[in-house]
């Protein structure tokens, strides 16, 4: 096996010496310590890992503190080879979607194209422009010392953001080494990409959404990558439902209406991108997208038909295609690939089946498949052989050379481990540029990539590394202080994030107040009455069931219900999951610190709730939940620019708190006038207003002052009027001078609450007047729900879900 660092005579290759030197300079046990720091950094980054969707993702990746060092000159030769390969793939695609000369001349067998689901027939005509704008390739260096391409990726091209994350972690955790090795920067590649996109989007800088990244959504394993990439490239992150094709153009649905999209970076399989023309579920694509492409209104990076280039059998034909289409010998070879439709190749495969991975020739490849288990499956399945023998033309077999090794941290020393490499390229309008870095992955003994990756450092000879277009001239931007281009879905998610975090807070406070009373050593009649009131509130908030309400002093069901709320299937548990999902979905609007503040404490609290085995543990976990909600509010208030994203987060919180205060007041005031004092004390406690009340009125609790504080005092952030006044202001900001009906609605609610408090203050029978408010407060609770629905209808649900028409028209025929 070849080693990247040590040559055949046991000498360290020159380009590794600087790194090794820097390792020697580290303090005792230094590398191991740095590795732990890296692990911790990655753990924090993947902090949403408790979500079922995210755990399927790549959050578990680890970074080896030993980078893969590549010699600059050798890297340049690789980059040139890949550039040639990308040119060739472009030419192949242009032919297969055009005149199909390659098929007519027999240079490519029809099996590679026609049965391939990645061959999109509607793209044959009318769409001009390039197929490939970006390209990623997987490589390994075989025992002969030559690098070979083992996979071509033109759709997912995943791992790109990881390269940048790796580099920044390495620079932070191992600054001595990063300084010691003179390496090429990776930043210019990203700058070039952003600039190219802006150029392609044209001069329309009035809206930021002229470039969008289309992601399958928060449940996709590459979601975090899409979030990062959209942010780095300054483009809108969009899901299928956020985009709409009409009039031969593509639009992003935002709060201010439809905004044209000129360039779409698609991370969706091309075959489902336009359900009208390509089939597939209507809700999983954008009907009319191909029409917009034909009209030239939008350019897709990459072209939806490009996945044809990932066909596992294509590498078998690339050398002859290179000669035919480019008139060039391939500078960089693929891992040996046999098309089994060729009798000589089939014989070769039969002679040494273990050396190859057989795959259907036309299944769109999912990137690198260096997994020899693919073969094990065939071997174990006698039909596997039969399938190949029955239709050898439909199969290709790829040789799997043993990859070269590179040093990795093992224990506190280094040990050689096999590595595979992924490199990234970008077309700048004139030619292909290669990122001067990449993602190396450590493979196991079978050559299968593990979750351990390495940063790739390309040594530099200190010259200008990136050739590209000159700086883009951007005209002076007009000052904008609003974010009307917030996608509707993002606003929707933020609104519900605000509501659910607040609902967690309300739930925790209610549960905590109940728990305190249940745990008193001596239970007074007053406590029993309060527990009854609280049970009404808990029931109203659907935290317990009707049968859990204590009857004739037996509260064991209530105790059990409170514990169960935080367990699997319980309401609080579900709420924490929902909050985590919404945090993930709005990740592109949160900084790294905010994301950590929104997720890390929640993960711990959720675990504590799951483990809580008694009132003490539950009480502590509920306390964390209350502090989590305050933390989120504080982080949001101090870090998010007012307007846009923050507006909807805050609006959600205000409405949720409004509805919950109205509900709890309505429930606790449902008492005979004689018990009103105890009810008011409870209201003050639940509204976190006890201290304020005491400072104003000492220990005398009376209806008028108590209700003034929790209802009408405009300065009390836990009072009702405060919520509605804030909601009115936020809605007015969103309405921006347009139809003011929603802010007027919030104002009516505020006036109604003020009037209620005034009635109690003006009444001679304060206790009776307070008790009479109960039904009116519950009506306010429902009115807030209606307002929330109206906000959703106006701003979030711009369009109904699409449906397919026509497949149910059964044809009949003349007999």
């Amino acid at each position, binding site marked *: 096996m070849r080693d990247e660092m040590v040559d055949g005579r046991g000498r360290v290759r020159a380009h590794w010496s600087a790194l090794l030197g820097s390792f020697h300079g580290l303090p005792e046990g230094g590398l191991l310590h740095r590795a732990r720091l890296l692990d911790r950094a990655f753990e924090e980054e993947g902090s949403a890992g408790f979500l079922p969707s995210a755990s399927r993702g790549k959050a578990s990746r680890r970074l080896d503190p030993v980078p893969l060092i590549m010699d600059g000159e050798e890297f340049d030769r690789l980059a040139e080879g890949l550039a040639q390969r990308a040119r060739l793939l472009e030419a192949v695609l242009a032919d297969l979607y055009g005149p199909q000369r390659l098929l007519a001349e027999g240079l490519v067998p*029809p099996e590679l194209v026609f049965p391939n689901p990645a061959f999109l*027939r509607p793209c*044959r005509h009318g769409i001009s422009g390039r197929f490939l704008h970006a390209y990623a390739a997987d490589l390994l260096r075989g025992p002969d010392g030559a690098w070979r391409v083992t996979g071509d990726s033109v759709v997912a091209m995943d791992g790109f953001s990881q390269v940048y994350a790796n580099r920044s972690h390495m620079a932070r955790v191992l600054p001595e080494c990063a300084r010691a090795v003179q390496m090429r920067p990776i930043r210019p590649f990203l700058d070039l990409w952003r600039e190219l996109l802006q150029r392609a989007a044209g001069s329309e800088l009035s809206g930021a959404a002229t470039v969008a990244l289309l992601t399958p959504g928060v449940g996709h394993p590459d979601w975090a990558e899409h979030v990062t990439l959209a942010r780095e490239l300054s483009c809108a992150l969009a899901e299928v439902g956020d985009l709409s094709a009409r009039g031969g153009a593509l639009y992003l649905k935002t709060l201010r209406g439809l905004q044209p999209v000129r360039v779409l970076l698609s991370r969706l399989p091309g075959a489902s991108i336009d359900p009208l023309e390509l089939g597939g579920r209507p809700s999983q694509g954008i*009907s009319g997208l191909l029409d917009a492409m034909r009209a030239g209104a939008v350019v897709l990076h990459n072209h939806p038909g490009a996945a044809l280039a990932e066909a596992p059998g294509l590498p078998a034909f690339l050398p002859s295609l290179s000669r035919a289409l480019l008139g060039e010998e391939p500078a960089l070879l693929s891992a040996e690939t046999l098309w089994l439709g060729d009798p000589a190749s089939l014989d070769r495969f039969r002679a040494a089946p273990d050396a190859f991975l057989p795959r259907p020739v036309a299944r769109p490849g999912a990137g690198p498949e260096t997994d020899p288990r693919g073969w094990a499956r065939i071997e174990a399945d006698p039909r596997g052989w039969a399938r190949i023998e029955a239709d050898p033309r439909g199969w290709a077999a790829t040789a799997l050379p043993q990859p070269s090794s590179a040093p990795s941290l093992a224990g506190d020393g280094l040990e050689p481990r096999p590595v595979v490499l992924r490199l990234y390229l970008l077309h700048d309008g004139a030619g292909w540029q290669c990122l001067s870095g990449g993602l190396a992955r450590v493979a196991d003994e079978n050559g299968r990539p593990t979750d351990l990756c390495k940063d790739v450092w390309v040594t530099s000879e200190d010259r200008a590394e990136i050739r590209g277009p000159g700086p883009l001239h951007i005209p002076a931007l007009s000052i904008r202080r609003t974010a009307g281009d917030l996608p509707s879905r993002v606003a929707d998610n933020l609104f519900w994030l605000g509501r659910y975090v607040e609902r967690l807070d309300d739930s925790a406070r209610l549960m905590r107040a109940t728990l305190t009373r249940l745990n008193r050593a001596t239970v007074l009649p007053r406590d029993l009455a309060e527990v009854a009131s609280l049970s009404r509130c808990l029931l109203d908030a659907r935290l317990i069931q009707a049968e859990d309400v204590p009857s004739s002093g037996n509260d064991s069901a209530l105790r059990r219900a409170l514990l169960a709320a935080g367990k699997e299937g319980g309401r609080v548990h579900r709420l924490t999951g929902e909050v985590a999902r919404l945090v993930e979905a709005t990740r592109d609007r949160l900084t790294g610190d905010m994301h950590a503040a929104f997720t890390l404490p929640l993960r711990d609290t959720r675990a504590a709730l799951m483990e809580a085995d008694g009132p003490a543990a539950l009480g502590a976990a509920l306390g964390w939940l209350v502090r989590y909600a305050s933390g989120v509010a504080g982080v949001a208030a101090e870090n998010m620019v007012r307007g846009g994203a923050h507006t909807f987060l805050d609006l959600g919180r205000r409405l949720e708190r409004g509805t919950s205060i109205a509900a709890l007041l309505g429930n606790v005031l449902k008492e005979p006038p004689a018990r009103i004092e105890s009810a008011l004390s409870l209201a003050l406690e639940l509204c976190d207003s006890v201290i304020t009340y005491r400072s104003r009125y000492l220990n005398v609790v009376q209806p008028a002052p108590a209700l003034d504080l929790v209802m009408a005092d405009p300065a009390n952030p836990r009072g009702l009027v405060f919520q509605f006044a804030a909601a009115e202001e936020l809605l007015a900001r969103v309405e921006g001078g347009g139809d003011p009906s929603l802010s007027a609605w919030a104002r009516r609610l505020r006036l109604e609450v003020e009037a209620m408090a005034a009635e109690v203050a003006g009444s001679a029978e304060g206790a009776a007047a307070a008790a009479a408010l109960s039904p009116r407060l519950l009506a306010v609770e429902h009115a807030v729900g209606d307002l929330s629905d109206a906000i959703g209808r106006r701003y979030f649900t711009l369009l109904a879900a699409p449906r397919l*028409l026509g497949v149910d*028209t059964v044809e*009949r*025929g*003349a007999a």
Partner: protein
Amino acid sequence: MIYRVRHVTDYTYESAVEMATHLLHLSPRPLARQRVLATSLVSDPAPTRRAEEQDHFGNPTAWLYLEDPHKRFVVTADSLVEVTAPPPLPQETPPWEAIRGAALTRPEVAEFLFPSPSLPPVEAARAFFAPHFTPGRPAGEAVVEMIAHFREGMAFRAGVTTVSTPVEEVLRRREGVCQDFAHLMITGLRMLGIPARYVSGYIRTRPPPGGVKRAGSDQSHAWVAAWLGAEAGWVEMDPTNSLFVTEEHVLLGWGRDFGDVSPLLGVILGGGRHTVHVGVDMDEAAGHEAWAEGSAPGR
């Protein structure tokens, strides 16, 4: 023979459709045996945007984009077509086993050798037709026998299948409509190594003896084309009627299966439940005069 074909598709929606995109294969395809004298495609409401282009298979295709709310959508395709019978099968055709190899060197033919989205390989379909394909038999002879015997024990019955009924089920039930028969025959032929494609169009019908033909009573039809070597080329046959295609078949287009040439597809937003009414009239016409008068015969 000159025909006037009027195909009206009428969708009524429960609530307004906010936006709709439609893909249509409703205009006859010009062929050596079929001259399209005139054709028009009109929708009500009129589309906000319309595009026409040939699809990958060379079929005339139209896209209609409706961006204003509507509760009804009516498309009328009206064409005047002159049809002649296809040439007879040549006297000699290659042995059927040789067809696949010859097809593989012609990409435009090879495409129809492979399974397609609605038509995966079905061994039972191959076995169903295999008895006609005895070793070394000329392809033309095998196909003549196959088409002559196809309807034995295969009942035409409307309403028991849908466009998505798999070929296995058609074989099991031994009944179906033209589309099912076409899908079954295509699957079997492809598995035998003979390129086969799905053809969409219309066939002339005759009123029952003594009866009067009702307006709109004609229907869409589907049949099969099989490639039988360089000389014979694509041979069209109608399994439903157990015959080779005549001058009474008007052709709209072809593809790998129904999905490629569905007459009308749409993606709509809103609309609730919908009802659809399809009416087809195919009548003999004198020529351009009938077109100029603007009145569809039979209406």
